[in-house]
């Protein structure tokens, strides 16, 4: 058992070295050749393989930049996000924040990092303890991370509630989560993410559980906050239609790897990877003509992350597969233009 496990780890340790990453560009966050694997246990004691949630991801985020990570469920974006937040430890690769490699640090050494990153979750109600009122919810990060007096905390809470436009502030302080609407709840969650004056915000599907009429409000709020405080934002979503209002670059993720990355305009007007094309084709705009045509998209499901297909992971569903190449060799990143990269053999 242990031998099998060690062998698997040894393999990736020796594997091909990471593509060169421009880590000197004053990147706020630099993710280098990140591999996040989860061990599967048999009957609680034996080893039964790995779930390769993130399998070689390179990503750079400049200070004050907003990027989107787009992908469907099971593509590994949640695991990527949790590793960025410091909850998971990678099995290989580095996560460098502000020049410091956090992926190797012990949890107790990561305390400084907690106040640098804010986290906004998908479920606004679930993200808050139902038995705490707004004041307590917003105070918690401060109580844990800084030595502040109650007065200092109160002042900061008022300031941050003002930022997220929750008025009148006094009315909201004693309320409990179930007394708020979905939009208000999400504002409080955003407020909580901002309360320690972070440099980076990780937003996981922040509006997908909100009503259509409220989504844009919240996205605008996030965008304003990002511009005002020069925050780095990682916006994780599966809804391509919101991406253009909120990000400068997009990373399309599939089965633990980045399929295509580039500026928003590049991806939307010159999508290259067949998976990106499929995603764009599948995203509808409200147009009555849609009802008359069948969408031309690949069938099938995303692959298992335990035994991913060899070569390019999209090849079983790809309409443009090159025989004997795509199913054997893993495609490296090809550059279409300086910021637009595709991991697809079609662009060799």
């Amino acid at each position: 058992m242990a031998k099998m496990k060690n062998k698997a780890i040894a393999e990736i340790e020796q594997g091909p070295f990471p593509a060169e990453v421009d880590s000197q560009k004053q990147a706020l966050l630099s993710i280098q050749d990140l591999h996040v694997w989860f061990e599967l246990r048999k009957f609680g004691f034996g080893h039964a393989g790995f779930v390769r949630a993130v399998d070689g991801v390179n990503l750079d985020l400049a200070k004050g930049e907003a990027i989107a990570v787009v992908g469907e469920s099971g593509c590994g974006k949640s695991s990527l996000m949790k590793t960025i937040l410091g909850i998971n430890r990678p099995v290989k690769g580095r996560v460098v924040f502000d020049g410091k490699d956090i992926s190797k640090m012990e949890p107790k050494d990561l305390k400084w990092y907690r106040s640098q990153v804010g986290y906004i979750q998908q479920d606004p109600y679930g993200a808050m303890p139902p038995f705490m009122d707004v004041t307590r919810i917003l105070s918690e990060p401060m109580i844990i991370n800084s030595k502040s007096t109650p007065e200092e905390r109160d002042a900061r809470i008022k300031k941050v509630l003002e930022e997220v436009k929750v008025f009148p502030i006094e009315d909201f302080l004693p309320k409990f989560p179930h007394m708020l609407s979905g939009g208000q709840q999400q504002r409080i969650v955003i407020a909580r993410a901002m309360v320690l004056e972070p440099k980076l915000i990780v937003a996981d599907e922040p509006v997908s559980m909100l009503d259509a009429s409220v989504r844009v409000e919240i996205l605008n709020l996030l965008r304003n906050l990002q511009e005002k405080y020069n925050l780095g934002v990682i916006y994780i979503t599966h809804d391509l239609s919101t991406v253009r209002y909120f990000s400068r670059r997009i990373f399309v993720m599939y089965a633990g790897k980045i399929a295509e990355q580039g500026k928003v305009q590049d991806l939307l007007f010159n999508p290259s990877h067949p998976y990106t094309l499929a995603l764009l084709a599948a995203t509808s705009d409200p147009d009555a003509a849609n009802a008359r045509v069948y969408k031309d998209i690949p069938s099938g499901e995303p692959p298992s992350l335990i035994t991913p297909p060899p070569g390019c992971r999209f090849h079983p569903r790809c309409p443009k597969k090159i025989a004997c190449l795509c199913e054997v060799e893993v495609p490296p990143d090809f550059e279409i233009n300086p910021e637009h990269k595709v991991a697809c053999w079609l662009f060799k």
Partner: protein
Amino acid sequence: MKSFVKNLKELLKYPSAIAGLSMIALLILLSILALNKYPYSEAIKLWRGTEQDWYTSPKFAQPAWTNWFRLNKLSETITVDSSQHPDYISVDEKSDGSSVIKISLPFTFNADSYQTDLAVYFKSTFKDKKPFVAVSLKTPDGRTIRLKNMAIGTTDTYRISQDKALIRKLDGEQPEIALFQDPESNPPQPLKGDYALEIEGVTFEPGSDINAEFIAFGDVSGIAGTDHLRRNLLIPLLWGTPVALLFGLLAAVGTTIISMSIAAVSTWYGGWLDNITQRIVEINMILPFLPILIMVGTFYSRSIGVILGTVIILGIFGSQIKTFRAMFLQTKESPYIEAARAYGASDSRIIFQYMMPRVIPVLIPQFILLIPSYVFLEASLAILGLGDPILPTWGKIIDDAYSNGALYNGWYYWVLEPAFLLMFTGLAFAMVGFALDRIFNPRLRGQ
């Protein structure tokens, strides 16, 4: 605090809860009364009491209020003590140092049935020569019946009921019956009226004196009756209340809080800790609870502290943990826990401030319902003879009653009184517990 008041208001909407709460309030009141009336040392002294403390009390007497339900009233205990009433004594000093002391102890006999026992307790002071007394009974219809002549020491007891000579004189009849019968009646009826016990004593030394106390033991005594050692049952009934409540409360609180903490910690850390804890729990669930307590009680110590400790230790790894674990596992997956980890909350903070508050509301009704089971447990142990040897508890009463054949002899009060209190406690907590359950688990509200 606010939520406590809100929940209390919600609770008071249920009539069963109001009834239950008042019953618990009554029990608490009884406990305070017990501790007030009989502070600990005095209670123990009385409970372990000797002849000195209880001699004026009858054995196996029913509670006095049962007479309300009887047409033929049972007799009450009659006591007349000359040392309390100096006017009952007349002393006639003679020139040679001797004195004739006449003591007349008047009493009224009004019951429909006879006294159970008659005794005269003499106390005298002298140097060498014992005083001599002649005891006789004066009946309401003017007869005087001579009972006995005897010499008395410093303390002496004349048990009239066991005087064989007197029995022979009364044609084989028991004195407590024959002496109080109306000779004219056929069939014989008790003769009600004013009686007097006459004692004519002679002392042979100057300064020597005699005091006499006549006790006619009744069939009823006090609010709660008496047991085989003449002890007033009110003491263990009252005193048993705080003992029962405390035992139940401490055991319930101890097991619940510790159980919950163990479940929280092991579920949060998972891995081998969780594994080991679950195996311990499973083994514990197989172990027989009561036999282990019996073993501890028999071989080690019956002190209530030891029993309480053992109960808690066996209880904390009980099946409650599995329920808690299920709840904690669910809470652990909540998004807000993940968010807390992201902003750096420590493990202990998450366990105690983020996970436990979700579980506590479910815990409260469970815990209230647990209290009476521990009360019954303590009583069961006492009935098995493993109760605390010092403390007067409800279970001890039942144990004594059982050993003395209470039901066989018709002394039902001895068993019914503690049983009633046990059921009262159980009912009170159950009603409150079920009402709380409906509040904290709304699905049961009948939606």
